[in-house]
């Protein structure tokens, strides 16, 4: 395989872009671990990164993570097979259920975070 194989087609290119969006996500999560460690060391040590550049970086990373979540959950209907009364549930229903679970989990996490921040 030549090193530039991913430039051969649009599909390959988009695949590589998709894979590379995981890198900034990993960097952001590492930074989150650092912030959690600082928060654990007490209020005096806690100084969250609040620069405009970091906020922009966070928004971009949020967009990447939403992209990964949507593509992952959209495929769930194709991959997960649930048999009810000897028949497979329609894939659309499974996808919808996964998005529903995602929304509920996000709401619960948001509630917990807001509750503890009060």
């Amino acid at each position: 395989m030549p090193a530039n194989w991913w430039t051969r087609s649009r599909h390959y290119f988009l695949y590589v872009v998709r894979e590379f969006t995981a890198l900034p996500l990993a960097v952001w999560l590492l930074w989150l671990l650092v912030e959690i460690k600082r928060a654990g060391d007490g209020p005096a040590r806690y100084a969250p990164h609040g620069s405009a550049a970091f906020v922009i970086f966070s928004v971009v990373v949020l967009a990447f993570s939403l992209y990964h979540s949507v593509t992952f959950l959209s495929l769930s209907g194709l991959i997960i097979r649930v048999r009810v009364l000897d028949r497979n549930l329609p894939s659309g229903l499974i996808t919808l259920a996964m998005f529903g679970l995602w929304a509920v989990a996000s709401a619960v996490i948001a509630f917990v975070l807001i509750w503890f921040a009060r």
Partner: protein
Amino acid sequence: MADKRVTIQATRYDPEKDSAPHLQSYEIPFSDDSMVVLDALNYIKANVDGSLSYRWSCRMGICGSCGMMVNGTPKLTCNAFLRDYWPRPIIVEPLNNFPVIRDLVIDMDDFMHKLKSVKPWIIRKQEIPLGAGEHRQTNEQIDEFRQFSECINCMLCYAACPVYGLNNEFLGPAATALARRYNLDSRDQGLKNRLPVLADSEGVWECSFVGECSVVCPKGVDPAKAIQQTKLDTTLRFVLPFGNRD
């Protein structure tokens, strides 16, 4: 129409004479709108250059032997119409990711070994005597695996898969789709015989879901789906106490 011509650039490679494959250009009559790339190759072989080597058999998208790269995309040449490319030249090359034996002929041994390793046939713990009658299936049971049974082993999916191109130890799309076909068959009891190959480090977990295998499949099989479903199956069998069905 009679004067219309098309340029075919075909890979030529004789391992005894050439150090590397190269393209040779042929200009041939494009006499009929229904002509496909395979017709053009057959014309070249019959009228221009009898030494051109390539595989083909049925000419109707069933045997899977005429797969080649047509303008960079894996295609069955019996299903690639010249009218879709004309007036541009058409570049015909051997399938990507396989060693080339000669001209457009690839060495398919690796795929044949992989196919055999997943035991793509019905395995019974105990064979039922022929006299005991047939294994009956409902339409729903057939629908479970029908799509995956359409695979014709044309290997276009392997030529499209960069994961296989980068690591040819990977089991690959078609072999997994056919393993899935038998694992989903209500008559089959061979799942545990196939799992060691499917769940191996070079099995389904090597796939990073490029998805191009399903795009190029000429029979509408979805090998990417078969691979992702197998990933889920092997995971559930590993983590759930009741996951190990026979």
